[in-house]
């Protein structure tokens, strides 16, 4: 059995629209170990959701189109799988939870039926057995009085409880991989900390690998072992959580971290913000997608996409500044100095 549960190579996804081809995901490669929590961070439109949902072709095609790439899950190349074959994987081996628990649950069906549905479809169990198991699942997802909840409809539950129901459904078949797409963005911080705690407990007890998509760097710090930063449909940096937070080597990652106010920090200095807005994916920039907003951008950044630079221990960055051929600006950046390059800001 290989260490890696998931390996994605040169994965690209586009949407064919009237306006043209929206290149949402461009040449993304990464791997995920068994039992590991990987956090994918990036702004809206950076391609993180499209990428993870396309792994098992959850997006309707057309307009979504997987242009290229390989997806190796549990040692098998599933990128060529058809709908029927994928169904054996979806829900059983790879489970998803989404941001909005209200739209993911059927409002006209009782909680009990929605939890048992997957069990009856995938596992050969009797109705009673499935019911007993469902109560157990709701309990392990942290829902008090699960027996009573089985008979209720989604609207009778709070947002946090609904997300717990989603978790119960997701873990029903003991998946090897859980993709949590902004699972707590719609919830209060207090509920968020409970839901994240539940996901972490399940990750430990079931040995389930987790891809956690979020834009909250605080959540990343508390949950992830590894982090992948996406921008403009590309991976710009990836590495162990400490490397990303303390030794980030990409200007975008640094700006992202600086844009989050710290509770212990001085609040008189203005927050660092990133000037401008994310690129238009109908006509993505030829070079590094972050170059137009980057204060360290050089000529080469605008015309050529940087390749991968390995910094050791699985810490990779895609930035010309880390290239051995880069000049003085790059040296200043790597030393952590603030440089305002002519032509930006």
């Amino acid at each position: 059995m290989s260490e890696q549960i998931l390996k994605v190579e040169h994965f690209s996804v586009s949407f064919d629209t009237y306006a043209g081809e929206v290149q949402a995901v461009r040449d993304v490669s990464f791997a995920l170990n068994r039992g590991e929590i990987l956090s994918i961070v990036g702004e809206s439109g950076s391609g993180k959701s499209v990428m993870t949902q396309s792994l098992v072709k959850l997006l309707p095609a057309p307009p979504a189109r997987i242009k290229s790439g390989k997806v190796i899950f549990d040692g098998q190349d599933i990128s060529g799988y058809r709908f029927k074959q994928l169904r054996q994987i979806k829900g059983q081996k790879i489970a998803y939870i989404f941001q909005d628990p209200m739209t993911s649950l059927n409002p006209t069906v009782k909680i009990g039926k929605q939890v048992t549905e997957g069990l009856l479809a995938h596992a050969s169990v009797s109705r009673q057995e499935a019911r007993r198991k469902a109560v157990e699942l709701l309990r392990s997802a942290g829902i008090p009085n699960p027996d009573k909840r089985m008979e209720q409809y989604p609207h009778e539950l709070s947002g946090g409880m609904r997300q717990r129901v989603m978790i119960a459904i997701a873990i029903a078949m003991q998946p090897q991989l859980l993709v949590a797409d902004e699972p707590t963005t719609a919830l209060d911080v207090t509920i968020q900390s409970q839901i994240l705690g539940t996901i972490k407990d399940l990750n430990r007890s079931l040995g389930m690998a987790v891809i956690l998509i979020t834009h909250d760097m605080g959540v990343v710090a508390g949950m992830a072992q590894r982090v992948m930063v996406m921008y403009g449909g590309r991976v710009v940096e990836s590495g162990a959580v400490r490397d990303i937070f303390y030794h980030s080597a990409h200007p975008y990652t640094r700006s992202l971290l600086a844009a989050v106010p710290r509770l212990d920090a001085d609040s008189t200095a203005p927050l660092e913000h990133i000037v401008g807005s994310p690129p238009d994916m109908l006509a993505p920039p030829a070079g590094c997608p972050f170059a137009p907003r980057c204060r360290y951008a050089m000529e080469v950044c605008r015309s050529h996409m940087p390749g991968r630079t390995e910094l050791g221990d699985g810490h990779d960055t895609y930035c010309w500044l880390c290239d051995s051929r880069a000049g003085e600006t790059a040296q200043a950046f790597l030393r952590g100095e603030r440089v305002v390059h002519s032509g930006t800001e």
Partner: protein
Amino acid sequence: MAQNDLILEVEHLCQHFSVGGGATLKAVDDVSFFIRRREIVGLVGESGCGKTTLGRTVKQIYKPTSGEVRFNGKAFSQMDKNDRREFSRRAQMIFQDPYSSLDPRMTVAEIVAEGMEIHGMYTEARRRERVIELLNLVGLSKEHANRFPHEFSGGQRQRVGIARALALEPEFLVCDEPISALDVSIQAQIVNLFKELREKLGLTYLFIAHDLSMVKYISDRIAVMYLGRIVELTTSTELYRNPYHPYTEFLLSAIPVPDPDLESGREHVRLAKEMPSPINLPEGCSFYDRCPYACEACRKNKMELRDMGGGHWSACDKARKES
């Protein structure tokens, strides 16, 4: 403190909604506080705690059930038609959702100018100039004036919403979660803009939010709300350094810190129960059944917000660490 230093005084404000079956939802219950001129007061709490209702009642969108709000020393109940009109100009609101709060069929110039037209401010030619000035002020440009809201990103739309509010030369802004719908890097842009505008225009804000780290960053003082009541109110540094109320302590412990080393050593308080329904609350402290410090007295007595010394107002001091 001189009376004219206070721009807003709220006294025993209640906003109760009848929800059928003889039940009452006390969305805002006996809330008192004040805001000094040029001050930013943050208002935080979980969803359903009544912070939006409080903001809207203060802005007179809802008529309060009881209690009084004074604006520049003048009570709402004493205001005549002209005063109310003046108030509706001087106090402006910025909404959470930059998508639904802008009319999709109006251009940005029309959106920004509408308030000035209604209030009969300036000549038409001057209004057009003002629109451009305002767009520049919030970081947009002349070219944006004739575009429609759908052509903008969330952050840019929020800037349009801010320009619309500033058009009426307000003194006081109620910002109802103005950054929650935006991306992190854009949030920082907008928060910096709010701070900058306070310096330039001498504005005062009531800043409603549920992101506590951003609120700490922007606010001078912070009020924590729980089930319709303010449970703690103090300067933002003091609140985070030394919370008195167990609910504040719980809320703060739930914020994830963007620092893996700190975060791995941190203990998140997990409460057994969720927030109870705000309809027909029991007697006594409303945090009683979730509070790790609760004692018998808490079940019976409703605690009042009081000054614990040094302007640190709290309804409870069970979580207090230093004396």
